[in-house]
Protein backbone atom coordinates (compact mmCIF):
# COMPACT_ATOMS: atom_id res chain seq x y z
CA UNK A 1 0.00 0.00 0.00
CA UNK A 2 1.34 3.44 -0.84
CA UNK A 3 1.60 5.74 2.13
CA UNK A 4 -1.28 8.19 2.30
CA UNK A 5 -0.74 9.66 5.75
CA UNK A 6 -1.89 13.20 6.36
CA UNK A 7 1.19 15.39 6.33
CA UNK A 8 -0.74 18.52 7.25
CA UNK A 9 -4.21 19.42 8.37
CA UNK A 10 -6.54 22.34 7.98
CA UNK A 11 -6.69 24.76 5.08
CA UNK A 12 -3.75 25.05 2.69
CA UNK A 13 -0.85 27.49 2.97
CA UNK A 14 -2.18 30.09 0.54
CA UNK A 15 -5.47 30.40 2.41
CA UNK A 16 -3.65 30.44 5.76
CA UNK A 17 -1.37 33.27 4.56
CA UNK A 18 -4.34 35.31 3.37
CA UNK A 19 -6.33 34.63 6.54
CA UNK A 20 -3.47 36.02 8.65
CA UNK A 21 -3.20 39.07 6.38
CA UNK A 22 -6.92 39.75 6.67
CA UNK A 23 -6.40 39.68 10.47
CA UNK A 24 -3.66 42.29 9.96
CA UNK A 25 -0.88 39.81 10.71
CA UNK A 26 2.16 39.05 8.51
CA UNK A 27 3.30 35.45 9.02
CA UNK A 28 5.19 32.94 6.90
CA UNK A 29 5.97 29.24 7.35
CA UNK A 30 9.26 28.34 9.04
CA UNK A 31 10.63 24.83 8.58
CA UNK A 32 11.24 23.11 11.92
CA UNK A 33 13.79 20.80 10.29
CA UNK A 34 16.14 23.37 8.70
CA UNK A 35 14.84 26.57 10.36
CA UNK A 36 14.51 28.36 7.00
CA UNK A 37 11.51 30.54 6.20
CA UNK A 38 10.10 30.48 2.70
CA UNK A 39 7.93 32.60 0.41
CA UNK A 40 5.55 31.87 -1.29
CA UNK A 41 3.90 29.61 1.29
CA UNK A 42 3.95 25.90 0.42
CA UNK A 43 2.95 22.63 2.10
CA UNK A 44 6.57 21.49 1.98
CA UNK A 45 9.83 23.34 2.64
CA UNK A 46 11.59 24.12 -0.68
CA UNK A 47 14.96 24.24 1.10
CA UNK A 48 14.99 20.74 2.61
CA UNK A 49 11.72 18.98 1.77
CA UNK A 50 10.55 19.11 5.39
CA UNK A 51 6.84 18.98 6.17
CA UNK A 52 7.10 20.21 9.76
CA UNK A 53 6.26 23.87 9.14
CA UNK A 54 5.17 26.43 11.70
CA UNK A 55 3.69 29.81 10.93
CA UNK A 56 5.80 32.51 12.56
CA UNK A 57 5.28 36.26 12.84
CA UNK A 58 7.88 38.26 10.94
CA UNK A 59 9.74 41.33 12.14
CA UNK A 60 8.45 43.16 9.07
CA UNK A 61 11.95 44.50 8.51
CA UNK A 62 13.79 44.03 5.27
CA UNK A 63 15.90 45.53 2.50
CA UNK A 64 15.09 46.63 -1.03
CA UNK A 65 16.76 44.00 -3.24
CA UNK A 66 15.74 45.61 -6.51
CA UNK A 67 13.31 48.30 -7.59
CA UNK A 68 11.57 49.61 -10.69
CA UNK A 69 9.23 52.50 -11.37
CA UNK A 70 6.30 51.71 -13.63
CA UNK A 71 5.77 54.84 -15.67
CA UNK A 72 2.17 55.94 -16.01
CA UNK A 73 0.63 59.23 -17.08
CA UNK A 74 -0.60 61.39 -14.22
CA UNK A 75 -4.17 61.23 -15.52
CA UNK A 76 -4.00 57.45 -15.27
CA UNK A 77 -2.80 57.52 -11.67
CA UNK A 78 0.87 58.40 -12.11
CA UNK A 79 4.05 56.40 -11.58
CA UNK A 80 4.17 53.59 -9.06
CA UNK A 81 6.77 51.38 -7.49
CA UNK A 82 7.32 47.65 -7.90
CA UNK A 83 10.19 46.12 -5.95
CA UNK A 84 11.65 42.99 -4.50
CA UNK A 85 12.20 43.04 -0.74
CA UNK A 86 14.41 40.57 1.08
CA UNK A 87 13.02 40.10 4.58
CA UNK A 88 15.45 39.93 7.48
CA UNK A 89 14.17 36.37 8.00
CA UNK A 90 15.42 35.43 4.50
CA UNK A 91 12.55 35.17 1.99
CA UNK A 92 12.22 37.57 -0.94
CA UNK A 93 8.87 38.83 -2.15
CA UNK A 94 7.47 41.27 -4.64
CA UNK A 95 5.98 44.40 -3.10
CA UNK A 96 5.94 48.16 -3.41
CA UNK A 97 7.37 51.01 -1.41
CA UNK A 98 4.70 53.50 -0.37
CA UNK A 99 4.92 56.99 1.07
CA UNK A 100 7.72 58.20 -1.16
CA UNK A 101 8.40 58.99 -4.83
CA UNK A 102 9.25 55.64 -6.41
CA UNK A 103 12.18 57.20 -8.27
CA UNK A 104 13.90 57.93 -4.94
CA UNK A 105 13.80 54.30 -3.78
CA UNK A 106 17.25 52.69 -3.85
CA UNK A 107 18.52 49.15 -3.72
CA UNK A 108 19.73 48.54 -0.17
CA UNK A 109 17.19 50.84 1.49
CA UNK A 110 15.89 49.49 4.79
CA UNK A 111 12.11 49.04 4.83
CA UNK A 112 9.30 48.11 7.21
CA UNK A 113 6.17 46.18 6.27
CA UNK A 114 2.57 47.16 6.77
CA UNK A 115 -0.65 45.67 5.49
CA UNK A 116 -2.55 47.47 2.76
CA UNK A 117 -6.32 47.08 3.08
CA UNK A 118 -7.41 49.29 0.19
CA UNK A 119 -8.73 46.41 -1.91
CA UNK A 120 -10.81 43.34 -1.05
CA UNK A 121 -7.70 41.28 -0.49
CA UNK A 122 -5.14 42.54 2.06
CA UNK A 123 -1.51 42.55 0.89
CA UNK A 124 1.90 43.50 2.26
CA UNK A 125 3.55 46.77 1.29
CA UNK A 126 6.56 48.59 2.73
CA UNK A 127 7.65 52.05 3.82
CA UNK A 128 11.20 53.34 3.93
CA UNK A 129 12.63 53.02 7.41
CA UNK A 130 14.07 56.38 8.35
CA UNK A 131 14.96 55.79 12.00
CA UNK A 132 17.52 53.21 13.08
CA UNK A 133 15.93 49.74 13.29
Amino acid at each position, binding site marked *: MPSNSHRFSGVGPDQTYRDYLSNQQFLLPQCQSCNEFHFFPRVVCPHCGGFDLEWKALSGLGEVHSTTTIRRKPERGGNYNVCLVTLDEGPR*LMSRIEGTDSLTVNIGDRVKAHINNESDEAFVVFNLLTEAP
Partner: protein
Amino acid sequence: MSNNLRGSSAIVGVGLAGCGEAHGRMPLDILAEATHNALDDAGLKLSDVDGLFTGSSYHFMPTLSTAEYLGIKPRFSDGSMVGGSSFVAHTLNAAMAIKTGQCDVALICYGSNQRTAGGKLATMSEQQIYEAPYKPRYPISSYALAAARHMHQYGTTREQLADVAVAARQWAQLNPAAFAQDDLTRQDVLNSRMISDPLSLLDCCLVTDGGGAVIMVSSERAKDFPNKPVYLLGTGTAHWHRQITQMPDLTVTAALDAGKRAFEMAKLTKDDVDVVELYDAFTINTILFLEDLGFCAKGEGGAFVENGNIAPGGSLPVNTNGGGLSCVHPGMYGIFILIEAIQQLRGGCGARQVDNPEVALVNGNGGVLSSQVTTILGTEAVL
Protein backbone atom coordinates in the same frame (compact mmCIF):
# COMPACT_ATOMS: atom_id res chain seq x y z
CA MET B 1 25.63 8.74 -22.45
CA SER B 2 24.80 12.23 -23.60
CA ASN B 3 27.69 12.15 -26.05
CA ASN B 4 25.80 9.55 -28.05
CA LEU B 5 23.63 12.38 -29.27
CA ARG B 6 26.49 14.58 -30.47
CA GLY B 7 26.11 14.92 -34.21
CA SER B 8 23.50 12.15 -34.37
CA SER B 9 20.91 14.35 -36.05
CA ALA B 10 20.97 17.20 -38.51
CA ILE B 11 18.78 20.03 -39.71
CA VAL B 12 18.00 19.74 -43.40
CA GLY B 13 15.21 22.29 -43.83
CA VAL B 14 14.15 25.67 -42.47
CA GLY B 15 11.22 27.94 -43.26
CA LEU B 16 9.86 31.31 -42.21
CA ALA B 17 6.47 32.90 -42.82
CA GLY B 18 4.47 35.98 -41.95
CA CYS B 19 7.34 37.78 -40.22
CA GLY B 20 6.38 41.38 -39.51
CA GLU B 21 2.66 41.76 -40.16
CA ALA B 22 0.37 39.01 -41.41
CA HIS B 23 -3.01 40.71 -41.42
CA GLY B 24 -6.08 38.57 -40.98
CA ARG B 25 -4.17 35.37 -40.35
CA MET B 26 -4.38 33.02 -37.40
CA PRO B 27 -1.31 31.58 -35.63
CA LEU B 28 -1.69 28.18 -37.28
CA ASP B 29 -2.05 29.76 -40.74
CA ILE B 30 1.39 31.26 -40.24
CA LEU B 31 2.81 28.05 -38.75
CA ALA B 32 1.51 26.01 -41.69
CA GLU B 33 3.11 28.27 -44.28
CA ALA B 34 6.44 28.18 -42.43
CA THR B 35 6.20 24.38 -42.24
CA HIS B 36 5.62 24.00 -45.97
CA ASN B 37 8.46 26.41 -46.68
CA ALA B 38 10.75 24.22 -44.55
CA LEU B 39 9.53 21.05 -46.29
CA ASP B 40 10.17 22.62 -49.71
CA ASP B 41 13.60 23.68 -48.52
CA ALA B 42 14.36 20.07 -47.52
CA GLY B 43 12.72 18.54 -50.58
CA LEU B 44 10.32 16.60 -48.37
CA LYS B 45 6.56 16.09 -48.41
CA LEU B 46 4.15 16.69 -45.56
CA SER B 47 3.49 12.94 -45.38
CA ASP B 48 7.18 12.37 -44.57
CA VAL B 49 6.77 14.14 -41.20
CA ASP B 50 6.27 11.61 -38.41
CA GLY B 51 7.51 13.62 -35.41
CA LEU B 52 5.97 16.89 -34.25
CA PHE B 53 7.47 19.36 -31.77
CA THR B 54 5.65 22.61 -31.08
CA GLY B 55 4.52 25.06 -28.43
CA SER B 56 1.89 27.77 -28.33
CA SER B 57 0.41 30.52 -26.23
CA TYR B 58 -2.90 30.05 -28.02
CA HIS B 59 -3.49 26.29 -28.00
CA PHE B 60 -3.71 24.40 -24.74
CA MET B 61 -2.83 21.14 -26.54
CA PRO B 62 -0.53 22.54 -29.21
CA THR B 63 0.58 19.28 -30.85
CA LEU B 64 -3.04 18.16 -31.29
CA SER B 65 -4.18 21.45 -32.81
CA THR B 66 -1.11 21.73 -35.03
CA ALA B 67 -1.24 18.16 -36.37
CA GLU B 68 -4.96 18.51 -37.03
CA TYR B 69 -4.46 21.75 -38.95
CA LEU B 70 -1.53 20.44 -41.00
CA GLY B 71 -3.25 17.13 -41.71
CA ILE B 72 -0.58 14.85 -40.29
CA LYS B 73 -0.73 11.84 -37.98
CA PRO B 74 2.61 11.94 -36.15
CA ARG B 75 3.77 8.83 -34.35
CA PHE B 76 5.74 10.94 -31.86
CA SER B 77 4.70 14.35 -30.51
CA ASP B 78 6.16 16.68 -27.91
CA GLY B 79 4.54 19.91 -26.72
CA SER B 80 6.97 20.65 -23.89
CA MET B 81 6.36 24.25 -22.87
CA VAL B 82 9.21 26.32 -21.45
CA GLY B 83 8.13 29.62 -22.97
CA GLY B 84 10.21 31.12 -25.74
CA SER B 85 12.99 28.60 -25.14
CA SER B 86 10.68 25.68 -26.02
CA PHE B 87 11.73 25.39 -29.65
CA VAL B 88 15.41 25.32 -28.73
CA ALA B 89 14.65 22.63 -26.14
CA HIS B 90 12.76 20.67 -28.78
CA THR B 91 16.04 20.09 -30.64
CA LEU B 92 17.21 17.85 -27.78
CA ASN B 93 13.91 15.97 -27.61
CA ALA B 94 13.84 15.57 -31.38
CA ALA B 95 17.42 14.26 -31.39
CA MET B 96 16.48 11.72 -28.73
CA ALA B 97 13.34 10.70 -30.60
CA ILE B 98 15.28 10.25 -33.86
CA LYS B 99 18.12 8.39 -32.15
CA THR B 100 15.72 5.95 -30.46
CA GLY B 101 13.62 5.39 -33.55
CA GLN B 102 10.51 7.15 -32.31
CA CYS B 103 10.44 9.24 -35.48
CA ASP B 104 12.44 9.71 -38.68
CA VAL B 105 11.50 13.24 -39.77
CA ALA B 106 11.04 15.72 -36.93
CA LEU B 107 9.21 19.00 -37.50
CA ILE B 108 9.82 21.79 -34.96
CA CYS B 109 7.42 24.65 -35.65
CA TYR B 110 5.75 27.81 -34.34
CA GLY B 111 3.44 30.59 -35.49
CA SER B 112 1.93 33.68 -33.91
CA ASN B 113 -0.14 36.69 -34.94
CA GLN B 114 0.73 38.63 -31.82
CA ARG B 115 1.08 41.97 -33.60
CA THR B 116 -1.98 42.09 -35.82
CA ALA B 117 -4.23 40.27 -33.33
CA GLY B 118 -4.06 43.66 -31.59
CA GLY B 119 -4.35 42.70 -27.96
CA LYS B 120 -6.62 39.71 -28.47
CA LEU B 121 -5.12 36.76 -26.64
CA ALA B 122 -2.43 39.14 -25.46
CA THR B 123 -2.05 37.43 -22.08
CA MET B 124 0.91 35.13 -22.53
CA SER B 125 0.93 33.67 -19.05
CA GLU B 126 -1.20 32.72 -16.10
CA GLN B 127 -1.36 35.43 -13.46
CA GLN B 128 1.20 35.09 -10.72
CA ILE B 129 -1.02 35.40 -7.65
CA TYR B 130 1.64 36.73 -5.28
CA GLU B 131 2.68 39.40 -7.78
CA ALA B 132 -0.75 40.54 -8.98
CA PRO B 133 -1.53 43.01 -6.15
CA TYR B 134 1.52 45.09 -7.11
CA LYS B 135 0.57 45.36 -10.80
CA PRO B 136 3.96 44.69 -12.38
CA ARG B 137 3.93 44.96 -16.16
CA TYR B 138 4.40 41.46 -17.47
CA PRO B 139 7.05 40.56 -18.40
CA ILE B 140 9.03 43.81 -18.56
CA SER B 141 9.04 44.60 -14.83
CA SER B 142 10.72 41.31 -13.99
CA TYR B 143 13.49 42.02 -16.49
CA ALA B 144 13.74 45.60 -15.19
CA LEU B 145 14.29 44.31 -11.65
CA ALA B 146 17.10 42.08 -12.94
CA ALA B 147 18.62 44.96 -14.93
CA ALA B 148 18.48 47.32 -11.94
CA ARG B 149 20.26 44.75 -9.80
CA HIS B 150 22.95 44.18 -12.44
CA MET B 151 23.53 47.93 -12.64
CA HIS B 152 23.72 48.16 -8.83
CA GLN B 153 26.16 45.28 -8.40
CA TYR B 154 28.38 45.76 -11.43
CA GLY B 155 28.02 49.38 -12.49
CA THR B 156 26.36 48.43 -15.77
CA THR B 157 24.94 51.57 -17.39
CA ARG B 158 21.92 52.49 -19.47
CA GLU B 159 24.38 53.47 -22.20
CA GLN B 160 25.68 49.91 -22.28
CA LEU B 161 22.14 48.54 -22.45
CA ALA B 162 21.51 50.96 -25.32
CA ASP B 163 24.58 49.65 -27.15
CA VAL B 164 22.93 46.21 -27.26
CA ALA B 165 19.94 47.73 -29.07
CA VAL B 166 22.17 49.72 -31.43
CA ALA B 167 24.22 46.62 -32.36
CA ALA B 168 21.02 44.67 -33.04
CA ARG B 169 19.75 47.46 -35.29
CA GLN B 170 23.02 47.56 -37.23
CA TRP B 171 22.68 43.83 -37.92
CA ALA B 172 19.02 44.35 -38.88
CA GLN B 173 20.05 46.93 -41.45
CA LEU B 174 22.06 44.18 -43.17
CA ASN B 175 19.01 41.88 -43.20
CA PRO B 176 16.28 42.91 -45.67
CA ALA B 177 13.81 40.67 -43.81
CA ALA B 178 14.25 42.51 -40.49
CA PHE B 179 11.24 44.50 -39.31
CA ALA B 180 13.02 47.58 -37.90
CA GLN B 181 15.41 49.26 -40.34
CA ASP B 182 15.64 52.91 -39.27
CA ASP B 183 18.95 54.26 -38.04
CA LEU B 184 19.29 54.01 -34.27
CA THR B 185 21.78 55.71 -31.95
CA ARG B 186 22.62 55.24 -28.32
CA GLN B 187 21.00 58.60 -27.65
CA ASP B 188 17.78 57.49 -29.38
CA VAL B 189 17.52 54.58 -26.96
CA LEU B 190 18.29 56.77 -23.93
CA ASN B 191 15.68 59.31 -25.07
CA SER B 192 12.94 56.76 -25.71
CA ARG B 193 9.97 56.62 -23.36
CA MET B 194 10.75 55.00 -20.02
CA ILE B 195 8.44 52.02 -19.37
CA SER B 196 9.76 50.29 -16.24
CA ASP B 197 13.05 51.72 -15.00
CA PRO B 198 15.74 51.18 -16.15
CA LEU B 199 14.18 49.75 -19.33
CA SER B 200 12.81 52.16 -21.92
CA LEU B 201 10.78 51.44 -25.05
CA LEU B 202 13.84 50.78 -27.20
CA ASP B 203 15.28 48.35 -24.63
CA CYS B 204 12.30 46.10 -25.47
CA CYS B 205 11.91 43.58 -28.26
CA LEU B 206 9.49 44.10 -31.11
CA VAL B 207 5.95 42.78 -31.16
CA THR B 208 5.50 41.22 -34.62
CA ASP B 209 3.71 38.33 -36.28
CA GLY B 210 5.70 35.43 -37.61
CA GLY B 211 6.31 31.73 -37.83
CA GLY B 212 9.21 29.38 -38.28
CA ALA B 213 9.85 25.69 -38.89
CA VAL B 214 12.86 23.39 -38.76
CA ILE B 215 13.17 19.84 -40.17
CA MET B 216 15.52 17.38 -38.42
CA VAL B 217 16.57 13.91 -39.53
CA SER B 218 19.22 11.34 -38.62
CA SER B 219 22.73 12.39 -39.67
CA GLU B 220 23.06 9.15 -41.58
CA ARG B 221 20.68 10.45 -44.22
CA ALA B 222 21.46 14.16 -43.86
CA LYS B 223 23.40 14.30 -47.12
CA ASP B 224 20.43 13.03 -49.12
CA PHE B 225 18.89 16.51 -49.05
CA PRO B 226 19.49 19.58 -51.21
CA ASN B 227 21.05 21.77 -48.50
CA LYS B 228 24.33 21.57 -46.62
CA PRO B 229 23.37 19.77 -43.39
CA VAL B 230 23.72 21.55 -40.06
CA TYR B 231 24.48 19.11 -37.26
CA LEU B 232 23.15 19.25 -33.72
CA LEU B 233 26.27 18.98 -31.57
CA GLY B 234 24.80 19.66 -28.17
CA THR B 235 21.79 21.00 -26.29
CA GLY B 236 21.60 21.75 -22.58
CA THR B 237 18.53 22.83 -20.64
CA ALA B 238 18.20 24.42 -17.20
CA HIS B 239 15.59 26.25 -15.15
CA TRP B 240 15.84 27.53 -11.63
CA HIS B 241 12.62 29.51 -11.09
CA ARG B 242 9.32 30.58 -12.63
CA GLN B 243 8.55 33.95 -10.97
CA ILE B 244 11.16 36.66 -10.59
CA THR B 245 10.84 36.61 -6.76
CA GLN B 246 12.16 33.04 -6.82
CA MET B 247 15.23 33.72 -9.01
CA PRO B 248 18.16 32.74 -6.79
CA ASP B 249 20.39 35.62 -7.99
CA LEU B 250 18.93 38.30 -10.28
CA THR B 251 22.27 38.69 -12.04
CA VAL B 252 22.90 35.02 -12.86
CA THR B 253 20.68 33.01 -15.20
CA ALA B 254 20.35 29.26 -15.63
CA ALA B 255 22.24 29.68 -18.93
CA LEU B 256 25.23 29.05 -16.67
CA ASP B 257 24.14 25.39 -16.44
CA ALA B 258 22.49 25.10 -19.85
CA GLY B 259 25.63 26.38 -21.57
CA LYS B 260 27.94 24.01 -19.67
CA ARG B 261 25.72 21.08 -20.58
CA ALA B 262 25.57 22.04 -24.24
CA PHE B 263 29.35 22.58 -24.51
CA GLU B 264 29.98 19.28 -22.71
CA MET B 265 27.79 17.37 -25.14
CA ALA B 266 29.34 19.20 -28.11
CA LYS B 267 32.90 18.68 -26.76
CA LEU B 268 33.61 22.31 -27.64
CA THR B 269 34.39 25.52 -25.77
CA LYS B 270 33.30 29.10 -26.26
CA ASP B 271 36.51 29.74 -28.21
CA ASP B 272 35.20 27.41 -30.93
CA VAL B 273 32.04 29.50 -31.45
CA ASP B 274 31.92 31.62 -34.60
CA VAL B 275 28.44 33.12 -34.34
CA VAL B 276 26.07 33.63 -31.39
CA GLU B 277 22.28 33.95 -31.39
CA LEU B 278 20.82 34.98 -28.01
CA TYR B 279 17.18 35.50 -27.07
CA ASP B 280 17.13 39.29 -26.62
CA ALA B 281 13.64 39.98 -25.31
CA PHE B 282 15.21 43.00 -23.55
CA THR B 283 18.67 44.55 -23.82
CA ILE B 284 19.73 43.15 -20.43
CA ASN B 285 19.29 39.59 -21.75
CA THR B 286 22.20 39.83 -24.15
CA ILE B 287 24.51 41.05 -21.39
CA LEU B 288 23.42 38.35 -18.93
CA PHE B 289 23.73 35.51 -21.44
CA LEU B 290 27.16 36.61 -22.74
CA GLU B 291 28.36 36.44 -19.13
CA ASP B 292 26.64 33.19 -18.17
CA LEU B 293 27.75 31.40 -21.35
CA GLY B 294 31.36 32.39 -20.63
CA PHE B 295 32.02 34.93 -23.39
CA CYS B 296 33.02 37.39 -20.66
CA ALA B 297 33.28 37.36 -16.87
CA LYS B 298 30.25 37.97 -14.64
CA GLY B 299 29.72 41.69 -14.35
CA GLU B 300 31.73 42.53 -17.47
CA GLY B 301 28.90 42.12 -19.97
CA GLY B 302 28.24 45.84 -20.07
CA ALA B 303 31.82 46.64 -21.02
CA PHE B 304 31.83 43.73 -23.49
CA VAL B 305 28.93 45.08 -25.56
CA GLU B 306 30.32 48.64 -25.68
CA ASN B 307 31.85 50.22 -28.75
CA GLY B 308 30.35 47.91 -31.33
CA ASN B 309 31.97 44.74 -30.05
CA ILE B 310 28.89 42.63 -30.87
CA ALA B 311 27.82 44.76 -33.86
CA PRO B 312 28.78 44.05 -37.49
CA GLY B 313 32.58 44.22 -37.67
CA GLY B 314 32.99 43.62 -33.94
CA SER B 315 34.96 40.84 -32.28
CA LEU B 316 31.92 38.54 -31.72
CA PRO B 317 28.94 38.41 -34.11
CA VAL B 318 25.84 38.35 -31.88
CA ASN B 319 22.22 38.29 -33.08
CA THR B 320 23.06 38.57 -36.74
CA ASN B 321 19.44 38.70 -37.95
CA GLY B 322 18.84 41.85 -35.87
CA GLY B 323 17.50 39.92 -32.90
CA GLY B 324 14.16 40.11 -31.19
CA LEU B 325 15.01 43.77 -30.71
CA SER B 326 15.05 44.63 -34.41
CA CYS B 327 14.20 41.61 -36.61
CA VAL B 328 11.19 39.63 -35.40
CA HIS B 329 9.51 38.74 -32.09
CA PRO B 330 6.08 37.14 -32.30
CA GLY B 331 5.43 36.29 -28.63
CA MET B 332 7.98 33.50 -28.51
CA TYR B 333 11.24 33.91 -30.40
CA GLY B 334 13.18 30.64 -29.89
CA ILE B 335 12.59 29.14 -33.33
CA PHE B 336 13.96 32.26 -35.03
CA ILE B 337 17.38 32.20 -33.32
CA LEU B 338 17.65 28.55 -34.28
CA ILE B 339 16.83 29.35 -37.91
CA GLU B 340 19.28 32.28 -38.07
CA ALA B 341 22.09 30.08 -36.70
CA ILE B 342 21.31 27.40 -39.29
CA GLN B 343 21.25 29.93 -42.12
CA GLN B 344 24.58 31.37 -41.01
CA LEU B 345 26.18 27.90 -40.98
CA ARG B 346 24.79 27.12 -44.42
CA GLY B 347 26.16 30.40 -45.76
CA GLY B 348 24.39 32.71 -48.15
CA CYS B 349 23.11 35.24 -45.63
CA GLY B 350 24.13 38.13 -47.89
CA ALA B 351 25.40 41.30 -46.26
CA ARG B 352 25.05 39.91 -42.75
CA GLN B 353 26.86 36.63 -43.48
CA VAL B 354 29.58 35.85 -40.94
CA ASP B 355 32.85 34.74 -42.54
CA ASN B 356 32.74 30.93 -42.96
CA PRO B 357 31.30 29.99 -39.56
CA GLU B 358 31.61 26.36 -38.49
CA VAL B 359 30.07 26.53 -35.01
CA ALA B 360 27.01 28.50 -33.90
CA LEU B 361 25.64 28.89 -30.39
CA VAL B 362 21.94 29.54 -29.73
CA ASN B 363 20.54 30.44 -26.30
CA GLY B 364 16.78 30.41 -25.82
CA ASN B 365 15.08 32.14 -22.92
CA GLY B 366 11.64 31.43 -21.47
CA GLY B 367 9.44 33.05 -18.85
CA VAL B 368 11.18 35.82 -16.90
CA LEU B 369 14.80 34.71 -17.37
CA SER B 370 13.39 31.42 -16.06
CA SER B 371 14.15 28.71 -18.60
CA GLN B 372 17.46 28.70 -20.47
CA VAL B 373 18.29 26.32 -23.29
CA THR B 374 21.60 26.36 -25.13
CA THR B 375 22.12 24.61 -28.45
CA ILE B 376 25.39 24.26 -30.32
CA LEU B 377 25.20 23.60 -34.05
CA GLY B 378 27.99 22.89 -36.49
CA THR B 379 28.93 22.14 -40.07
CA GLU B 380 30.40 18.85 -41.25
CA ALA B 381 33.88 20.28 -40.62
CA VAL B 382 33.40 20.04 -36.84
CA LEU B 383 31.43 16.80 -36.78
